């Protein structure tokens, strides 16, 4: 494994020596992060070595995530799990290399890179776990709010709020909002799985869920329940 030349990276957080070419011109990078960026753009053996080291780290992160979620993949063989980890690391590596100029230095480079590997692995695990399962989208599932799923506080409060929530789900939402809300919050369908089945994205589905929740909260508050109406998202709409 090739190491960066001694002295090429000053210790600690240092000012950017070449603002025009660096991904961040007005901030400082920690030495390790700068070392990664330099090595990944170095060309030749140094770049190849950096890419190999990065892939190894991403593979480690992907395996961590898959091991963590192993209980949802009890029927999947170890060989397939290894393939999932490798695919996740490969996809994450491509994303990191493609987006590295977007790295703003607001975290360590490795933390920034790990999130791609963990995301790739978690999405693949969720989709694999639901691969042979039907996604329940029954519009009436909201009418079956299971008492066993209530928290002790909610159970103590009795059925008044539950009845109001059921009523609000039934009358206050569009059919699409109701389907998404029921699937994600009552039936426990992972958002990435639902997004894949509906041909949309996690963000778009969460926006639908957010809008549905805001409607429910507004209706419950208008009926006098001690429920805070949901504010709009900070900065950009959720």
């Amino acid at each position, binding site marked *: 494994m090739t190491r960066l030349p001694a002295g090429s990276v000053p210790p600690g957080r240092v000012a950017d020596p070449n603002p025009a070419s660096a991904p961040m011109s007005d901030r400082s990078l920690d030495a390790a992060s700068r070392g990664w960026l330099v090595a990944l753009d170095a060309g030749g053996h140094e770049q190849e070595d950096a890419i190999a080291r990065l892939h190894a780290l991403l593979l480690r992160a992907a395996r961590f995530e898959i091991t963590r979620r192993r209980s949802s993949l009890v029927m999947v063989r170890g060989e397939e799990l290894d393939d999932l980890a490798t695919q996740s690391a490969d996809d994450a590596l491509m994303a990191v290399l493609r987006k590295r100029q977007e790295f703003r230095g607001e975290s360590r480079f490795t933390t920034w890179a790990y999130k791609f590997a963990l995301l790739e692995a*978690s999405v693949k695990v969720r989709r694999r776990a639901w691969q042979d399962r039907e996604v329940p989208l029954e519009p009436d599932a909201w009418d079956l709010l299971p008492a066993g799923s209530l928290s002790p506080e909610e159970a103590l409060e009795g059925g008044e709020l539950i009845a109001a929530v059921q009523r609000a789900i039934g009358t206050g939402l569009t059919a699409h909002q109701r389907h998404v809300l029921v699937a994600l919050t009552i039936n426990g369908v992972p958002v990435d799985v639902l997004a894949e089945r509906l041909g949309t994205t996690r963000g778009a589905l969460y926006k639908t869920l*957010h809008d549905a929740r805001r409607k429910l909260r507004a209706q419950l508050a208008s009926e006098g329940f001690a429920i805070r109406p949901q504010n709009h*998202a900070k900065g950009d709409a959720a």
Partner: protein
Amino acid sequence: MSQTDVSHPEPPLTGLIGRVLGPAGPEVSCERCFELLDAYVDLKLSGADVDLAMPGMRAHLGGCPACGEDHESLRDFVAATGRQ
């Protein structure tokens, strides 16, 4: 829950009703959450006040199971690997 004065603080909604109604406060989107996640984790592990630095993240992580899980994974992995 009785129909009471709405000026009272909202009780904790941790079970099914909590999942259905989600967080009350402002929250970031899934896309923004992913953009901020690495900085959020590093700041949090350094002991900084992440709620002050990144308002809306905690609410989103509590309301979006997928982003919440991704946050836990990144936090735990970075902590376990010693923030290499």
